[in-house]
């Protein structure tokens, strides 16, 4: 179990005179919960996702993002002083190692890197990084020194030097299972990362990556945009499996009720002008679908 706790989070675009986007966001997502985050364009939904993951384009000017872990996590005892992590202090890859996942609205294309190579590297690196984070600081420094001194252990003639924790064969099996779950064709594994993928395939691929990396909390940014109905079903199955089988907490950013019919949210939040303006249950999403956001805005301004 883990909890992502966002308190009074404020952030600007990271340049001189950068616009303020987040103006005090409060939001808590627990493992096993599905939250839908809705709101008009430009309200700060995507920025919130990026700031949680550590995107360098934004400066956090106030507030906190904290990840709380249980005493027993990742199949290990977690000592008390390592259960609480200030994510804003950590690099994006360290946040990933602790179980934060961001599904991109616009996944990038990386030429020449096959899916299978990328995913196995990511999984192994994540496991390694996590181990390092939980080691005492001193031990960590030592381990790094050692690594550097060693260089490569084998001759290039003898094949790859570093197999990582999950070997090629084992990984193939994991990948195959997850791809079946998402109804993805086997040929995806040997394609270059997102290169030439259709919009829908890219979104499917984001969910596949989440399924493989098994995050504690997954932020999925408009995972439903550009999906036809069949693929919407596959992607939804994938998201539900993340929650049901892996116990992940989901923060789903969306404009449409449509996906919420398949992935039923426990909580729905409306973001307006960089703040959570209103929260409710699944009914709220339906009301938004029917009536738009204006009534929420009116309600908020009346209250103020």
């Amino acid at each position: 179990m883990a909890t992502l706790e966002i308190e009074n989070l404020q952030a600007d675009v990271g340049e001189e005179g950068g616009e303020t986007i987040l103006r005090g966001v409060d939001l808590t997502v627990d493992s096993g919960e599905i939250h839908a985050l809705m709101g008009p364009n430009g309200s700060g939904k995507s920025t919130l996702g990026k700031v949680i993951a550590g995107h360098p384009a934004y400066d956090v000017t106030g507030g906190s993002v904290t990840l709380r872990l249980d005493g027993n996590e990742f199949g290990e005892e977690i000592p008390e002083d390592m259960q609480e992590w200030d994510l804003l202090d950590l690099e994006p890859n360290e946040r990933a190692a602790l179980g934060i996942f961001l599904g991109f609205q616009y996944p990038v294309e990386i030429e020449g890197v096959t899916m299978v190579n990328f995913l196995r590297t990511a999984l192994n690196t994540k496991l390694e990084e996590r181990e390092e984070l939980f080691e005492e600081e001193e031990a960590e420094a030592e381990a790094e020194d050692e690594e550097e001194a060693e260089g490569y252990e084998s001759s290039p003639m003898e094949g790859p030097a570093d197999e990582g924790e999950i070997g090629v064969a084992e990984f193939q099996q994991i990948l195959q299972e997850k791809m079946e779950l998402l109804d993805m064709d086997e040929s995806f594994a040997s394609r270059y990362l997102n290169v030439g993928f259709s919009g829908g395939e890219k979104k499917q691929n984001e969910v596949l990556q989440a399924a493989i990396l098994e995050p504690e909390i997954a932020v999925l940014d408009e995972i439903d945009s550009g999906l036809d109905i069949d693929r919407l079903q596959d992607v939804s199955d994938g998201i539900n499996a993340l929650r049901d089988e892996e116990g992940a907490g989901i923060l789903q950013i969306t404009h449409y009720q449509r996906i919420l019919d398949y992935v039923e949210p426990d909580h729905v939040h409306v973001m307006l002008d960089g703040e959570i303006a209103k929260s409710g249950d699944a009914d709220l999403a339906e009301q938004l679908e029917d009536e738009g956001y204006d009534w929420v805005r009116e309600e908020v301004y009346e209250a103020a």
Partner: protein
Amino acid sequence: MSSEEIQETDTEARFEFKKEESSAFQTEKGLTEETIRVISEDKNEPEWMLERRLRALRLFQEMPMPTDWPGQPDLSEVDVDEIVPYIRPDIEARGGADNWEDLPDEIQDTFDKLGIPEAEKQALSGVGAQYESEIVYQNMKEQWEDKGVVFMDMDRAVQEHPDVLREHFMTSCVPPSDNKFAALHGAIWSGGSFVYVPEDTTVEMPVQAYFRMNSEGMGQFEHTLIIAEDNAEVHYIEGCSAPKYSEFNLHSGGVEVFVGENAHVQYSTVQNWSRNTYNLNTKRAICEADGTMEWVSGSMGSKATMLYPSTVLKGPGATDNHITIAFAGEGQDIDTGAKVYHNAPDTKSTIESKSISKDGGRTNYRGLVHIADGAENSSTAVECDALMFDNDSTSDTMPYMEIQESQVDVAHEATVGKIGDEDVFYLQSRGLDDDDAKQMIVAGFIEPITEELPIEYAVELNRLIELEMEGSLG
């Protein structure tokens, strides 16, 4: 000194004697006819080869240093006179270090990081004893000999295949008059390899193992001559990613390839020169009707590199493919490219160039595609992609086209970009740290090259680039 005396003494004694006798030329500065005669005599070369060397020397002395190419690397520090002690067999000081321990630390370090076995390290770096996998080589040699394939070092080829060499050695393909450094090469070349593949013969295994392990093949002025007769097929691989160190800072190799009708030659090279080296080479292929020439080159290391493998598509239906990659780090100027001459109808060429620059390094693609009048229905496609790591680094593209025929298909694409922050963040959000993310992007960027190379070269090239990117190479 009479010639009889020479025959009676062994080589070493002969030069001992010479050294004592003529202190005059030890003090004599510069590359002279005398030096060339000593080299040729030491190799026991026939008169015609000596004549060619001397003619090349005269051309070298006449030709001006190239200084007026737009944006060319600065060659003002190349002092050819300093070369003499390294090429005269009668002078003790040689290019390499005598002991592994004498090599600069950064070179030793790179070998360690590349994970190259000890014995091989010593040979590859140019230290002392040769390391050869005798058994492997012997097996390959027998297989080849049965087919009539010749594969030997150039010095021996001059002795054993004089007719073929007289016809092909620096005549129609790379004459010494081609450029100043081709002329220099013609005068002082030494070592390299000669490959002859008879008609209708395919050399199954890439011809590489021997030269990977034999330092003879990788000198500073090595000459490679490849002749593939009609319908022959060969993949030749030269060099390796291990850094090649020499105190003298010029590498000037020559490569000549003759591709017969419907023959297929692939020439792949990955070279990594130490950071003090000027790498100035001339490589050219002549391709007959329906023949195919493929160049795959990785240019790493060096202070400055100027390298533009060229292909003359002489016969109708001939094809040329170029794939090149260049990496420039701090203080490096890597000027590479390709040249293709379409001199017959229905000829095709593709050029794919990738370059990476980092920490203020500069890469430049300099290419020429010439389509002659009458070479109708020819096509060419040129693609240059440059990846820069930071704002201090530079990348230029100079793709010249000379099109004299109207019935042709010409395509050119160039992309120059900084490594994408969004790409790096995407990979970071999946667990890779900043360095690993960039390494993965670069490995993907050069994938078209690495997939052309045998696996162990591809692995080494990737490791080398990883090391370059960490900035942990000297």
